[in-house]
């Protein structure tokens, strides 16, 4: 998921950065100072999700869960993910510094799209229905993310087109896993603390 520094062309880097700035700006506008503890703590949970490695045949995948993050945070996912990705680059070496904008957009924009797509469904009074929307959101976010990653690569040069084509099928297993995991997570939240998702956040 994390594209490294040096791979992408300048136009892609710049447009990624611009989009990220816009997204973060909107996110920050929508986030009160009162919400900071909540957003900070939730962002940490999603940071930790990327440490949960699930076996998949002979290899393993780690969770991304940007769909669920989007469902919960909406536009605020942008600043949350920007900070999380920044920490990951600096302290773990995942991704790169100049591609931070592109990486943020690739993960946060799907989250926001999912927020609008699943906004209604996730608030359904039946836990099962809500959870299915959660699964759609979880899997959908991965699809959109991988398409965007593929595009960022393909737009950076002819030679990346093959790599870009490989991105999509490579993410199908992750998509399935995230779908199931998101289903269970939403189901649990809906039964245990429904006010958490149904509550309106400004």
């Amino acid at each position: 998921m994390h594209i490294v520094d040096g791979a992408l062309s300048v136009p892609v880097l710049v447009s990624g950065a611009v989009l990220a700035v816009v997204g973060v700006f909107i996110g920050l506008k929508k986030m009160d100072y009162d919400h900071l503890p909540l957003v900070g703590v939730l962002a940490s949970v999603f940071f930790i999700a990327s440490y949960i490695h699930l076996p998949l045949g002979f290899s393993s995948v780690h969770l991304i869960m940007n769909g669920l993050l989007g469902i919960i945070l909406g536009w605020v996912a942008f600043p949350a993910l920007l900070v999380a990705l920044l920490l990951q680059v600096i302290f773990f070496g995942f991704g790169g510094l100049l591609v931070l904008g592109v990486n943020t957009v690739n993960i946060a924009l799907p989250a926001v799209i999912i927020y609008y797509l699943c906004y209604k469904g996730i608030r359904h009074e039946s836990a099962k229905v809500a959870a299915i929307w959660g699964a759609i959101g979880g899997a959908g976010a991965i699809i959109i993310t991988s398409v965007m990653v593929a595009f960022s690569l393909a737009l950076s040069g002819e030679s990346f087109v093959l790599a870009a084509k490989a991105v999509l099928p490579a993410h199908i297993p992750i998509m399935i896993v995230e779908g199931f995991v998101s289903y269970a997570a939403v189901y649990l939240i809906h039964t245990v603390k429904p006010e958490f998702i149904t509550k309106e956040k400004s």
Partner: protein
Amino acid sequence: MTYSNQPLIKIENLSYAYPRRGSVLKAINFVLHRSERVVINGDNGAGKTTLLHLIVGLKKAKQGDIIGFGENCKTEKQFNQLRAKAGLLFQDPDDQLFCPTVLEDVMFGPLNLGLTKQQAIEKSLQTLKQLGMQGFESRITHQLSGGEKRMITLASVLVMEPQVLILDEPTNALDEKAKMRLLNVLQALPQAMIIISHDKIFSDQLATRQLNLQDGLLTEASNPAVAVA
């Protein structure tokens, strides 16, 4: 249960140290026989929880052997088999309950052991009944009281039919009534037990043998209780 005279769990020369700390456990030796109930006493931070986690392989010892049911456990796979036979009750019930409803939480263990869903449900209901918790199966775990949570975690361990029960401060955060209830339940169980408890009254009633963990050493308790000035 056909281990004639063989000890259920045997610990030899076990040592442990957390990174950048002094050693917590120094060459511990310990044997658990059938139908014993061993209570381990020790101050806060003495390393009791660490010891229990080492026994079931949640932490790996740098030195020493853990021989569970005749097998010297070294690999994660061996420990996994050990864990099916030695059920560990955690210090904080909140850490153990992660499913939305009680039934799902109790079923979790049997499903891990490879039972079918139907079998797991049956067995879980039966265990809940045995602990007097029938009617709780569709309650939401997160909303239970402390005592109820403790009982459910006990059920979720017992449902796996362990031969040894390992209890980390089971009376923690329980009120007197819940404590008495737990005591009765535990006394009626046939399993061998290793118990940590700060509650003198509780442990005195339950123990067949008491040990002290102090300065990383495990010794027989001669004088059971020394009050703090």
